């Protein structure tokens, strides 16, 4: 990613983070960076970033390089084979396994977090699309365009067969409009409610007629397209898809909505105020809605590293599970991505199956009792070794000792929280257990299920 300065709009509100007494570059902040911008990381990665300071660490995230030292050999080839198997077998389960593999072992956690963001933003469910190959293609769009100009991503999505099928585009024809795509495009993907009228939706539906999918490929059918004049958001003319996109990108509300999305990914409730958001939106408008710029601006900022922003969000299911795999350095051969994907679903985040067009609500909504119980059960299962195939309990004691720490509670709390262990992590039960390795595993179960570990 090209380095950009924040010399234009936004400088005052998004001043860069410089370590100081109130906000030192300590283990807590390193853990925060990894958990918030990516996933929990292994001890050696944390120590490297602690030693090298914020700038190189953030740079590695932006370049897609923060975890390259643990990437399995032939990672891309394995991922490709998993995807191909999913497509040939038409298996949603294998498709989830493909993405879970990328999430757990890929070098670019930030890229995957952004892919999750866009998957949520353009929430498309395979339950209706019913085609793993198309869902995979859509997912790759998020990876390819998720950090560039939003217009490129949006235009690609409006030609994406999965999205078009999901929102009934093939039914939307001249003289027989179907408003589904037009409405969600304006309400969810760009402007947001309050910035368009019902008349705009109807006219936009007409502009989008003719977009269809034939044999899994995008097709524009001229005869189905309503080429007559429409008035959308005050502009009149024979508008079609591209013209509509241009209008939506120009509209100031789109930048605001993107700011909302991106801030929600990296910042806790109430961290970025009105002025900060406004500045970020202005900056986006000046830069062709460049998503990478917004991401970089936030990650480099003092606001991001403020105390109030640390452990200020609820950890999502994907982050919890993938973070545990990475932090505990579980090797690929011990991990069954299908099983992990099933746990994500039990916790309420079923990949490729968002609950509706609005995506996953996230935040506090992750912690209903059923889903909280799934988190507790996952912690117990992982620690007992039943989440891996073949079953093998992670040797927490050995891992801690390898990294020079003889106290598993301390090791785990520093690894996962960047802080000393809460009292509950050192339960009496663990202390009475003569088998130290077993005691360490129980501590792991307790730690992963603890209230502290549900925050990021």
């Amino acid at each position, binding site marked *: 990613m090209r380095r950009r300065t924040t010399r234009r709009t936004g400088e005052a509100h998004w001043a860069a983070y410089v370590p100081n007494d109130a906000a030192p570059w300590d283990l807590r902040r390193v853990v925060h960076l990894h958990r918030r911008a990516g996933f929990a990381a292994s001890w050696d990665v944390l120590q490297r970033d602690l030693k090298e300071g914020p700038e190189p660490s953030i740079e590695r995230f932006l370049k897609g390089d923060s975890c390259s030292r643990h990437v399995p050999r032939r990672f891309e080839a394995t991922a490709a084979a998993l995807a191909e198997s999913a497509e040939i077998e038409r298996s949603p389960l294998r498709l989830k396994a493909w993405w879970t593999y990328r999430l757990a072992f890929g070098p670019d956690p930030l890229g995957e977090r952004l892919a999750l963001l866009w998957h949520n933003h353009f929430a498309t469910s395979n339950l209706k699309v019913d085609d793993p190959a198309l869902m995979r293609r859509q997912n790759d769009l998020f990876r390819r365009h998720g950090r560039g100009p939003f217009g490129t991503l949006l235009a690609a999505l409006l030609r994406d067969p999965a999205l078009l099928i999901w929102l009934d585009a093939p039914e939307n024809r001249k003289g*027989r409009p179907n408003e589904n795509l037009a409405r969600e495009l304006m*309400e969810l993907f760009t402007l947001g409610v309050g910035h368009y009228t019902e008349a705009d939706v109807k006219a936009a539906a007409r502009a989008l007629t003719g977009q269809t999918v034939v044999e899994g490929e995008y097709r524009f059918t001229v005869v189905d397209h309503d080429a007559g004049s429409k008035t959308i958001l005050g502009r009149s003319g024979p508008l079609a898809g591209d013209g509509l996109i241009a209008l939506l990108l120009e509209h100031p509300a789109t930048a605001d909505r993107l700011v909302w999305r991106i801030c929600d990914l990296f910042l806790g409730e109430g961290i970025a105020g009105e002025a900060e958001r406004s500045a970020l939106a202005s900056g986006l408008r000046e830069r062709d809605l460049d998503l990478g710029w917004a991401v970089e601006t936030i990650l480099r900022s003092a606001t991001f590293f403020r105390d109030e922003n640390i452990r200020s969000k609820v950890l999502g299911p994907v982050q919890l599970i993938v973070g545990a795999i990475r932090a505990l350095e579980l090797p690929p051969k011990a991990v069954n991505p299908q099983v992990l994907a099933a746990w994500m679903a039990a916790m309420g985040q079923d990949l490729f199956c968002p609950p*509706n*067009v609005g995506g996953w609500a996230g935040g506090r909504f992750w912690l209903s009792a059923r889903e909280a119980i799934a988190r*507790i059960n996952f912690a117990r299962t992982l620690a007992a070794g039943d989440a891996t195939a073949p079953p093998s309990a992670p040797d927490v004691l050995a891992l801690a000792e390898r990294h020079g720490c003889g106290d598993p509670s301390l090791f785990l709390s520093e690894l996962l929280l960047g802080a000393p262990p809460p009292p509950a992590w050192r339960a009496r039960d663990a202390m009475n257990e003569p088998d130290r390795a077993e005691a360490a595993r129980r501590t792991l179960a307790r730690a992963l299920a603890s209230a502290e570990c549900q*925050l990021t």
Partner: protein
Amino acid sequence: MQRRTFLTSGLCGSALVSLAPSVPAFLATAARAALPKQDGRILVVLELNGGNDGINTVVPFGDEAYARHRPTLHIPADQVLKIADGLALNPAMRGMARLWEDGALAIVQGVGYPNPNRSHFESMSIWHTGNPGPAPRASIGWIGRGLDGGRPPADGRASAMYIGNGSVPVAIRGRRSVASSLDTIESFRLMNAAAVRPTPQTPGGGDDLAEFVRRSTLEAYTTADRLAALAPDGGKDPSYPESALASRLRVIARLIRGGLRTRVYYTSQPGYDTHVCQLVTHNALLGELSEALLAFKRDLASAGLADRVLVMTFSEFGRRVAENGGRGTDHGTAGPLFLCGPSVRPGLVGATPSLLDLDDGDLKWSIDFRRVYAILLDQWLGIPSSEVLGGVFGPLPLLHGGEEPIEVLKVGFRGPPD
């Protein structure tokens, strides 16, 4: 013994408001006195998700505009289940028709709110928060806000429960009251139940995130313990049809029988967003709804629990009067709402929305949904509604507890004898 005819479709909303004050006080008192004890009462909310087409649910088959607006979607008069003059239920709704005949069903017509919103999320948010005002709305729901009023149970027990596998709906989210969710009772089983768990500290009153997480974790353990005490799901239950909705209602029945003190259960039936090829899909959904509801009511009745449970169904909006080009319908405005239970005053409430006097192709609403909420809060759950809803809303005669038999128009269908 006083016979009372149910309200016909001739009465409009405002007429009901003017009727209400003239209901003799002794009748009103008698009605309240006969309702089951306050803390035993349970509300079950059944959300029809996607925008249920009210016109093909409560069918105005006697209106010539019906067939005219819906050349392929109208249901012929000889197929519908007649419940009143020119009005009928969709032929798939045999279960509901049975409830109608048993005097256990009220149909509130023309329900909506000012400045109807045709966005799924906006309109659903309006119904969930009880606030038709402009976005953004608080992410706290009308039921959640109502339950917040009481003291939070020290052991973190849930006052409201969502049955399904989506996330907890806004309607039952409160600031302090914790709403839990479950899909099957199995998904509440804690593995390795003997494992040491964190000592439950008394939750602080705070609202902040860390406190919320602690409370939620605590509530998870409590709920797991409580449900572990119930009998396991076991094999199939022949008294329920085989549908996802029926399974969820069966879970709710089991939880109620299990003595859980949850006051509100919430579940939803997805699929009502019928933009394309509506007829088959919609009829199937209504059939599933009806049969599941009937089985649920019978289950509760057999356990002697029917009078404690009131079911309300609603949808975020109705659909447009005219069909679209895809043999479906697009998002609309007003729609019917069903209330079901022995405590419900059976019959039609409100006027059938006119198919001629439309609002840009959509039905005009006449009953503000908050009037229904107000009755459920005040009279059923015993929660003062004006604070929850931010105002006082004209009462509707929806509930009674009396034993007076109701004169009911027999539904014109031949079903298996009861």
